[in-house]
Structures are given as C-alpha cells and as structure tokens.
C-alpha cells in the first residue's frame, strides 16, 4: 500500500524563546521528516511570537504526524497546514547574482523584466536581481539566468498565508 508523497507548506506560531527553532528542527531530523525549506522571524513583538514556515513532504499519514508532533511542543501556539487547509498565497524572495557582459548582459535584463525582477545592485560586469514569487517562478528565472553567467543565488525559503479575512 504505497501512499502518495506530497509537498506541504506548514506555518507554525511559536513563543520566541531560546532553542525553539532547534526544537522544531530537531523534531524533523530526529523523526526522519524532510525539510525542503524553512523560514523564521518574529511576527508579533509585543507577545514575542515567531512564525516558522516549513515546506516538507510526506504521505498523508506522515503529514498528519508532523502536524500532531509540532502541535504538542510546549512553546507552539498554532500549526496550520496551508496545503491541506485550502487557498493560500506562497511567496519566496531570491537575490540572484549574474556576472556577464555584452549581449548576455542585455539578455539578463530582458529576462528580469519579463519576470518583474528588480535590479538592486549593478557593476560593469554584474547584476544582482531581486525577485519575489512562488517557488516555481524563482526556479524558472534561475534556470534562464544560468547560461547567462549566474554565479550565486540566495533564497529566503517559502512564506505563506491563507487567503481571506481569517487569521491563522
């Protein structure tokens, strides 16, 4: 009985206390779950709450376990599986460094324009582009920039939020 493995984007609200990120990451490594991307930042200063977004993959049974395991950690307020719970927005930001000259330089600008990437740094021999979007869009740009002199990529990992008026 092989069940289908799917990618899930999960948001976790946690108390911003020492070791909380290690607790979450340790849970994933200790129990053999995947982490495809991970982001974390404080989102509520007054109550000292951070939001961790994890992209993971697994069978429905594993995903259910991951959610239950996360929920039972003491400093965790809320766990939300965006993929399982309905419409949501996912975004990722990348900074892409392309070192090139001549026709390739023009071409890289053209591609950046198509994907609405912004130039945030420039020298005679390079650009740094900033691009925001879904993971697939970022990957498309990176793929196109590769033959043009792509030398470095820095990505934030996915953040996500549910559509509609209701908070997490």
């Amino acid at each position: 009985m092989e069940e289908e493995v799917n990618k899930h984007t999960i948001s976790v609200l946690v108390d911003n206390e020492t070791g909380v990120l290690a607790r979450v990451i340790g849970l994933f490594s200790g129990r053999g779950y995947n982490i495809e991307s991970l982001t974390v930042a404080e989102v509520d200063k007054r109550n000292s709450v951070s939001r961790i977004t994890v992209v993971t993959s697994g069978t429905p049974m594993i995903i259910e376990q991951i959610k239950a395991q996360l929920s039972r950690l003491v400093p965790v307020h809320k766990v939300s599986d965006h993929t399982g719970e309905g419409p949501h927005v996912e975004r990722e930001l990348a900074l892409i460094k392309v070192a090139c000259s001549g026709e390739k330089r023009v071409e890289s600008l053209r591609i950046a324009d198509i994907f609405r990437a912004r130039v945030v740094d420039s020298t005679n021999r390079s650009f740094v582009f900033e691009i925001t979007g879904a993971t697939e869009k970022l990957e498309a740009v990176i793929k196109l920039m590769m033959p043009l002199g792509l030398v470095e990529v820095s990505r934030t990992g996915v953040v996500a939020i549910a559509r509609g008026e209701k908070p997490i």
Partner: protein
Amino acid sequence: MDDAQLTGSEIVLKVLVDQGVDVIFGYPGGAVLPIYDALYQQVAIRHILVRQEGGAVHAAEGYARSTGKVGVVLVTSGPGATNAVTGLTDALMDSIPVVCLTGQVPTHLIGNDAFQEADTTGITRPCTKHNYLVKSIDDLARVLHEAFYVASSGRPGPVVVDLPKDILQAGAVYTTSRQTKHKTYRPKLKGEPDQIEKAVRLIAGAKRPIFYTGGGVINSGPAASRLLTQLVRMTGFPCTNTLMGLGGFPGTDPQFIGMVGMHGTYEANLAMYHCDVMIAVGARFDDRVTGKLSEFSPGSKKIQIDIDPTSINKNVMVDLPIIGDVGTVLRQIIKRWKEGECRTDEKAVGKWWKRIRAWQGRDCLAYEMSDTIIKPQFALQRLYELTKKRDVYITTEVGQHQMWAAQFYKLEKPKRFMTSGGLGTMGYGLPAAIGVQIAHPDALVIDIAGEASILMNIQEMSTACQYRLPVKIFILNNQYMGMVRQWQELLYGGRYAETYTAALPDFVKLAESFYAVGLRAEKPDEVDGVISEMLATDRPVIVDVVVDQMENCFPMIPSGAAHNEMLLGPDDKAKTPVSEEGMVLV
C-alpha cells in the same frame, strides 16, 4: 539582599515544597553546591543519595510510577546531566512524570567549554517532554512551577530545568505561586461527544470485540483502572494488556486473557488478529505489540482513546480516534452506554468467547518441568504463589526475566508493575525498586532481575543499604544475556557472540559485601525455602536463583511475523524463516 529576598537555591526548594515534593533523588557536584547547602539547612525535603545519576532518574521513575506523583531528580552539570540522559529517555518513552534539576556553569561561562560544562538543554531536548535553561532569577520560580505542570499533565514525561550557578546564588523575592495555566500548552481531556456516541454504537454492535489497554490507563490515575474494569465487566468483552498496561485490569479476572505482543499469550494475540472491534485504551500500537503491520488485526474496526494526538494513526490507521484523558473518556462512554440502555450482542460475544477459550486450552505458558534444574518460569510461579496475598510492587530489569515476570506475575492493581517498556533499559529495576521502596516504606518491593541487567546498576545496592530499604532482588541467573541469546539462536545460527558472561560475581558474597543478605537456590526444591527466607528478612536481599541456561521465552512472535504466526515452544519452527525485513526489526 533585603529580608524578603531569597537566594535562587532557596527559591528552588520553596517551589519543591509548594509542589508537595518531600523526597528527591540526587548526587551533588560543584554546580549544584548552593542547592545542597540550602538542602542541608532544612527538613521539609528528604534527599536520597544515589551512587550514579542514572540511578537517580530510575529511582525517581519508580517513585513516580508507584505513586502517580512527579519524581524529582537533582544532579550537577556536565557528567551529572549526561549520566541522567538514559533515565530521561526512559521516562520519555514510558510517559513518566519526572522533573530533573541540573546544575550548570555560571551564565557568563556558558559556551566557554568551562569545567563540567555540557550543553544540557541541547543534549536533552530530544529526550525530554520539554526543557528550560533559566537565564534570569526572575524567571526561576515560574519556570520551576511550569516544569511540574508540563511533566504531570497531558501525556506525562520528563522535564529538565538547567540552573546556572550564578542564578542559584542570586537573590529575588519569591512571588509566584503554583500555576496551572500555560500560554500555549493545554492538553485536551474530554472526548468529543459525537465520537463517544460512535464508540458506544461500535461497542454495542461488536461480535468479536477486544479491549487492548496500555500504560495510559495507569497514567490517567486509579479512577481510570476502576472505570476500565467497570466497562469491561459491563460489556463482558475480553481484555488484554500491554506490558505497560499490566495491572490496569485485574490479572486474575476471568475476562483477562493475558498480555498482548511479542511474548504475549496465544489467546490475546489471536484475539487481536481475529477481532472485529478493537478498543485501544491508552495504548500506542508499539511495534512489540503489533508485529507485522500489514497483517495487524486486518478485519477490525479500531477505536483508539489517547491523550496524545501523535499516538493516533502513527503506526496503525484507526477508524475512530478519541483524543482525551483515558479516565474522562471512559466515564463519558459508560455514562452514554447507561443512558442509551445499550446492550452488547451477547450471542455473538458468547461464540467469540468459545473460540478464545479454545485458544486458552493450548496453555501457551506451559513449560517442561524438571526435578534437577530450576526452570525460570517455575521460580517466578513460586514467587507469585508465595507473595500474591500481599500488596506487592514489582520492578524488573530488561530481558527474558522481564517477559516471564509479565507472563507469570499476575497483577491485580495499577501502579504495581514498574518496568522499562519503551526504551528497554537494562539496569532499570534496582534503582526503580529503591524509588518505590522510598515511596512505600512498608511494602514488599521485588526487583525481578537477570544477572546481566542487575550488574548495570549494581552500585545502587549501596543506596539501598544506606537507607535500610528492604528491597528484594530476585535474580534469574542463567549466565547469559538471555533474550539476546534467544535471538542469536533463532536468527544467527546459535553463534552466541558476547552474550555469555564468563566472570560473574558470587552474588551471595556481593550482597554481603554491601552488608545486605545473599541467598542462593540451585535445585527446584530449594526455591520455596529461599523465597520464604527472603520474605522473612527485613533488609535488602539478593536471591541468586540458578536457572536453566538454555530456557527460552515463549510464546513468541518472531520479528516481522504476524499475530497468527506465533511460536509456542522450542519445537515450534517458524513457518518461513525470518525475512531480512524481519531481522532488522529485532
């Protein structure tokens, strides 16, 4: 420091007293000297000095499991904390409420590789339910109270509080009182009414039902055992216990069909295999219970009651999960059952019992008796017969003797059987017995042991003797690490690599060297005599029972096999050789 201020150490002790703690298990060292100094100057809390920190945690576990209270441990930084790790992991696996206070180097030295420094919160994060590093004296009291709450509520577990030495010496006003609410952590106790309704309907319609009950029943408290017994008797269904659940339902009740799992009874395992409704109560479908997952109870609807959502659908998909406290949910089910004037399908259940009685007719725990050599099962049967009228607390080490103890020592009440179930920690039984005896000074406490396991924490004999704890250590001595040897026999062609102990001590003299009493039985007709003498001795006793070296523990489900593929005895060969897949599961 003004008058209203207390030192960190005094705050620690004040919290313990406020939490109703009257005994702690520990071992001093540099980083916790301030606490020991404060302990010296008070009388409310008794400190039991163990001989190694690992023993302190097991003793606290024994204390906690036999009382239902939180067991408290105090150890120093570095090696004190790392020695406690096995016990903490053991408590996590078996859901035992323990608060472990660890010393730490002063905050300004943390991360400096200071003397006896270890990253205690880092090391213990995966082996505790939660842990804390106290970085400010103002947090100290709140964190300690919270530690007790987290350890004892929901699914219980161990909690570490790491205490830097400068915090212990600083001063603050103690204001926080016992807290019961936490910002985020709130375990769910009551089952959803519609789930209760569905459970009642499933129970009423069951034709081949079984109650499969585990440690959650014990952990939920004595009421849960009473309610379980009430529900089982009301329905007339058979009941099996996991190793952790033994005593949760009376072991001599006619509706009890023995332990389930790898060394469970033939009838319990076959009933699990053939049932149509399984009611899992505080049990987590552990691999020692389920055997081959794909063939685990293939035709049944499964109800699972558990306080921990992660226990649901982890190994086995269940049809009706009920998240809540076992006692609370059982009460809800019984109430609904009575309100609805529900009835079971008596005719079908009667037929089911006929099948179970036929399986029981196989007498799966039978063994070949001998006049010349002591069979380990015989020794345990005699121990049971000669002590069953008393309120006995049993602890065990890990191995064959543990399984025989579970099979032959029938437990009538909860909190009477302390064994390392999940982690399988050899060396657990003696320190656990010490913790039990501290909690119940007048009770009969017996550690059923093997000669290999007992040597893992034999130093705690010194603790038992210091506090005049009359624990009885009943060693089934076969000179082998018997359970490992049994697997080598079954799976590795009888190549007994390193499982024979060639230089065992003389356990009688060993006992005497600790100023305890040592006894030995070598022939079957000596067994009753040494047991009587052991019971008549009001001091720690080691009984060295020299048993059949090659006896194996049956029945047995070879790893990777299903419940209906049990081996019943030495002449019973597995239908198919154990697969490679099975071998990795040993």
